[in-house]
């Protein structure tokens, strides 16, 4: 792939140890994280709580220093300040000076970015409109709801029209309308040729808008690549709901079709690969079960995600045992 777009963000073998306090043992949060974000894409940095997404982003923003490894944005090392003119950042659960109004805070950030005073008012108005906060622009932020603060966060990140936007959980705290608004903003950025890096664990958002993803579990990257390929791996499955399945058959079926049968009240739910649905149904009927429903389903990212997490945990456990063996 020599014709792939240039890399905007490059992270190489990033390691971060946190020292909880004087004398306490340090804790490794990132174990050699590497990935790259290319120009013009929406990149999803996906992982469960505590995986190290925010920590990675803080390294990228120069807020914390990596223990080892390198990270660069637009070709500059993240320790420098030069490239910041071209990036926008929305932190996790953003918080702003409560004593300022929405308009004042955006003016403040715009001035920090060196937006010319003749353009300032117009720029602030544009962003208030973009995030739909015109109605509250002259109220103090202390009166804003969580979702409104999130919108202020997006607006300040984009106030200087950056080339790359780094968003930590952009949809958190938003209602469905709010989430759609943010999704639209992100898609609009992409349409304008900007690059978007977003941390999230809301998988439906990832499926809907991301071009590529990296999955991080316990501080290690488990997958990096186009989301389409990731979803194609075993694309179609069916959800089958049945009742009155004898428990010994249940175990046997689970093994034969390598599926997990979940008991939900009186019924049992299972996901089976597309080619195996016929065989599974025949076996279940043969054992006297009653079929309640069969729903063809493209495998959800959630399922793959859970598998990646479990796989990651098994790998970590192996690594731990291996580590003990050598030391």
């Amino acid at each position, binding site marked *: 792939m020599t014709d792939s777009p240039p890399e905007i963000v490059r992270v190489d073998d990033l390691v971060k140890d946190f020292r909880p306090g004087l004398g306490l043992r340090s804790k490794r949060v990132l174990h050699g994280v590497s990935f790259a974000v290319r120009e013009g894409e929406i990149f999803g940095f996906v992982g469960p709580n505590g995986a190290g997404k925010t920590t990675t982003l803080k390294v990228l923003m120069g*807020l914390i220093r990596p223990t080892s490894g390198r990270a660069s944005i637009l070709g500059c090392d993240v320790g420098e300040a030069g490239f910041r003119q071209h990036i926008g*950042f929305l932190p996790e659960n*953003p918080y*702003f000076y409560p004593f300022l109004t929405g308009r004042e805070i955006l003016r*403040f950030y715009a*001035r920090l970015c060196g937006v010319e005073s003749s353009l300032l008012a117009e720029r602030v108005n544009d962003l208030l409109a973009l995030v739909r906060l015109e109605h509250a622009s002259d109220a103090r932020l202390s009166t804003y709801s969580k979702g409104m603060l999130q919108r202020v966060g997006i607006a300040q990140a984009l106030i200087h029209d950056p080339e790359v936007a780094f968003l930590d959980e952009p949809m958190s705290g938003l209602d469905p309308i709010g989430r759609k608004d943010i999704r639209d903003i992100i898609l609009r950025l992409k349409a304008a040729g900007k690059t978007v890096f977003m941390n999230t664990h809301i998988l439906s958002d990832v499926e809907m808008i991301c071009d590529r993803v990296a999955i991080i579990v316990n501080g290690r990257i488990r997958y990096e690549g186009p989301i389409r390929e990731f979803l194609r791996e075993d694309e179609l499955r069916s959800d089958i709901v049945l009742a009155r399945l004898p428990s010994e058959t249940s175990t046997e079926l689970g093994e034969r079709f390598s599926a997990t049968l979940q008991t939900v009240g009186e019924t049992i739910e299972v996901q089976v690969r597309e080619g195996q649905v016929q065989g599974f149904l025949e076996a279940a009927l043969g054992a006297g079960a009653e079929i309640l429903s069969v729903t063809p389903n493209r495998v959800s990212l959630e399922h793959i995600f859970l598998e990646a997490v479990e796989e990651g945990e098994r790998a970590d456990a192996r690594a731990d045992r291996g580590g003990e063996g050598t030391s």
Partner: protein
Amino acid sequence: MTRSLQRIWPIATNTVREAIRHRLLYTLLFFAVTMIGVAVLIASLSYVEGERIIQDIGLASIRLFSVGIAIFVGIGLIHGEVDRRTIYTILAKPVTRAEFLLGKFVGLLLTVWLQLLLMGLAFVGVSLLVGAPLDLGYAAALFLVGIELMVIVAVATLFSSFSTPMLSAFFTLGIYALGHLSRNLYFLGQEADVENVRRAATFLYRVLPDLETFNVSIQAVHGLPIPATEVGWAVLYGLAYTTALLSLAIYIFHRRDLE
């Protein structure tokens, strides 16, 4: 340089705005009114040199209050940025950590100077009310309190750059107290027989600020002359000491993880 100032200035003015909108100045007005009341009361009770006592009390309380405010408000305002993580969005803009810290410092200094000005006005008001003499000596005394505040705010900024709010306040208070004693400690130390004690005393005197440099209240109250060279020297000393403190603060803050 000018670009740097364009970023430092909004941070500074924003800090002043935060202080003003935080009801802080109203506490101060309350103090000023109380001071006027107490002063009038004392003046009506005492027979000998009532005005002098009032002015003495007035200057002393201005010093104490302004330093207290500088320490507690100053430390709160810097730590608030890190604790509430407002600093994340600021440092993601093209703002260096040095610019951020300088912006906070300038903002805090302007805030305490504003308060000093208000208290100074209250002082003038009371003096006029009780008919106490006012001359340039008082202006010099208040001006030097302003320079001392600059040093104190720089000390608070330095400790805030790496320590917790509690410890920062504690250390800054300690430096303030020691700073007023350092001259006496030095002279006391030189009396010692042991060579090392003399050396230690000299060392401490060099490192600690000599805050008595900024104290000319006695001359002011008793109408004694305050030479311009003394004031000039105090200003230079204050500026140099502040520069050293801020450089150290920037160095430390630059290396720190903002978690």
